[in-house]
């Protein structure tokens, strides 16, 4: 069962080479049973073991192989700068759309949370409640750490506010009495959560002299519902456009594989594993993904710079100090990571399809 005994040394070398060979192949393309022939022969044929210098496939040489292959893949892209740039731009546009949407949504979210974002609480007191109880309630509310502002509106003031509204001037006069209750308006502190506010409302409801407590939070809830929906939409858009990126990279890599068909054939004939053959193409996909992600960041930042002026105007109208904040490092990191992952996926799908043709039948 001796195989190629003139070769015994190299096969012994091969024993050490094996793990690296597997690693050199990305994922499933690497031969799983790589080099098991090698084991058998290494045992039976020791002669000539010193004749050849061993190929020490250390982490170092594996690293240098990957560095070399990735460098070659990049220089291949740079050889056709226009075509590569167009492809990368396509990827960048697909990346920048969901990121833009995400940035805008998170900005509006910040806006909703900080700027007058808390609902008002209106406490309607019982009719004819004594001034002493009113003062006591106001003092209670002032002491509560979750309440920032307390405003008392007497029935008389309520009437005068009411009468200022167009068309309602005579309504109260015709009634002949003042139907309005005393109202205490509370503005919760910004750090108070909805749950805390709900608790407060129940607590206030039970206080002496209180008729009804209203928490005006509908508009905040609506805004947040819309924002949640938009956020989901951004994610979905991200998913669809991510698929686009994978397809673009897959197609580009496929074209590259077609143009290097002869090279692949030769490498395959002199014993290159699928992993070895796929490596340059996978690096090509990774480069496209990374360049696309970086370009997408450039696009997003340029658009935000243009938009920030408009945002300032809008914020001014709402008496807000709001400034447009860009995507955080986490978003940029995720973008870069998706670039790499999509690049690998796109390239691997093309390689996988092509490798079906390399199997003998």
């Amino acid at each position, binding site marked *: *069962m*001796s*195989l*190629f*005994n*003139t*070769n015994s040394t*190299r096969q012994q*070398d*091969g024993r050490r*080479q094996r793990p*690296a*060979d597997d690693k*050199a192949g990305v994922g499933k393309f690497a*031969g*799983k*049973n*790589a*080099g*098991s*022939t*090698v084991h058998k022969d290494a045992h039976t044929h020791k002669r000539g073991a010193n004749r*050849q*210098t061993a*190929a*020490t*496939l250390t982490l*170092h*040489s594996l690293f*240098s*192989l990957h560095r*070399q292959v990735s460098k070659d893949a990049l220089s291949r892209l740079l050889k056709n700068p226009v075509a590569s740039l167009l492809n990368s731009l396509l990827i960048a546009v697909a990346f920048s759309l969901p990121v833009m949407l995400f940035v805008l949504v998170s900005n509006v979210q910040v806006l909703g949370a900080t700027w007058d974002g808390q609902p008002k609480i209106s406490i309607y007191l019982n009719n004819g409640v004594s001034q002493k109880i009113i003062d006591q309630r106001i003092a209670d509310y002032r002491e509560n750490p979750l309440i920032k502002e307390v405003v008392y509106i007497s029935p008389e003031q309520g009437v005068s506010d009411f009468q200022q509204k167009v068309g309602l001037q005579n309504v109260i006069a015709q009634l002949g009495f003042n139907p309005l209750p005393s109202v205490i308006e509370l503005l919760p502190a910004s750090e108070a959560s909805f749950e805390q506010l709900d608790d407060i409302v129940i607590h206030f409801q039970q206080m002496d002299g209180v008729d009804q407590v209203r928490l005006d939070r509908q508009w905040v809830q609506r805004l947040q519902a819309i924002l949640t929906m938009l956020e989901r939409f951004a994610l979905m858009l991200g998913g669809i456009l991510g698929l686009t990126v994978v397809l673009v990279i897959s197609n580009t890599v496929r074209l590259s594989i077609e143009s290097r068909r*002869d*090279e692949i*054939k*030769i*490498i*395959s*004939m*002199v*014993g*290159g*594993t*699928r992993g*070895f053959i796929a490596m340059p193409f996978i690096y090509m996909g990774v480069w496209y993904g990374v360049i696309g992600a970086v370009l997408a960041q450039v696009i997003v930042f340029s658009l935000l710079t243009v938009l920030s002026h408009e945002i300032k105007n809008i914020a001014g109208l709402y008496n807000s100090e709001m400034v447009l904040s860009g995507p955080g490092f986490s978003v940029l990191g995720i973008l870069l990571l998706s670039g790499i992952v999509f690049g690998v996926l796109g390239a691997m799908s093309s390689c996988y399809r092509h490798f079906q043709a390399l*199997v*003998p*039948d």
Partner: protein
Amino acid sequence: MIRFDGVSKRYPGGHVGLEQVSFHLERGEIAFLTGHSGAGKSTLMKLIMLLERASAGQVWVGGHNLRTLKNSRIPYLRRNIGVVFQDHQLLFDRTVFDNVALPLLIAGYSSSDCAGRVRAALDMVGLLSKEKLFPVALSGGEQQRVGLARAVVNRPALILADEPTGNLDPQLSTEIMKLFESFNQVGVTVLIASHDLALVARMRHRILTLDHGRLVADQEVQ
């Protein structure tokens, strides 16, 4: 080293590549494979390298039954076989050095490790001075010798050559054949497909003759 047991290869559409071919090539032997074009020489070579699988019969290479060899292990089989082609099959965007270094790179040697071996192989075929050139700058004979250097750089146990002298003049052809003989003398098994009967006869080695896919003659060394 190579054993064929009743091997047939039929292609879809009914074309017969090989029909019931049986022979045994011992370790360290050198033999020629001749026959008219289309007789099945290339098919036989492809079966040994597992570029194609036989339709019937058993092919044994280096003690391995190729029928049971998994696809994922084919690269490791091929690393033990040096191949030379009529059309050289060089990579034209890489230098002579890089072309020869390819099998070593694939086997996991770093480029600094393999420099010595590449130069030794190039020295053997007399092209050491041209290592930095690109294949286009070389003549046909020189390109063939680069292919030869690439085939032997990994010190394979078996060398297959498919019409290695097809495009060369008689003098260059003889030189190439002498190189194959010298590899054989250090223990490498060599199988050369050629339709140049005069050259083959001159070399005085074992000759296997194919005709329409059948092995019609197996002449031992005279």
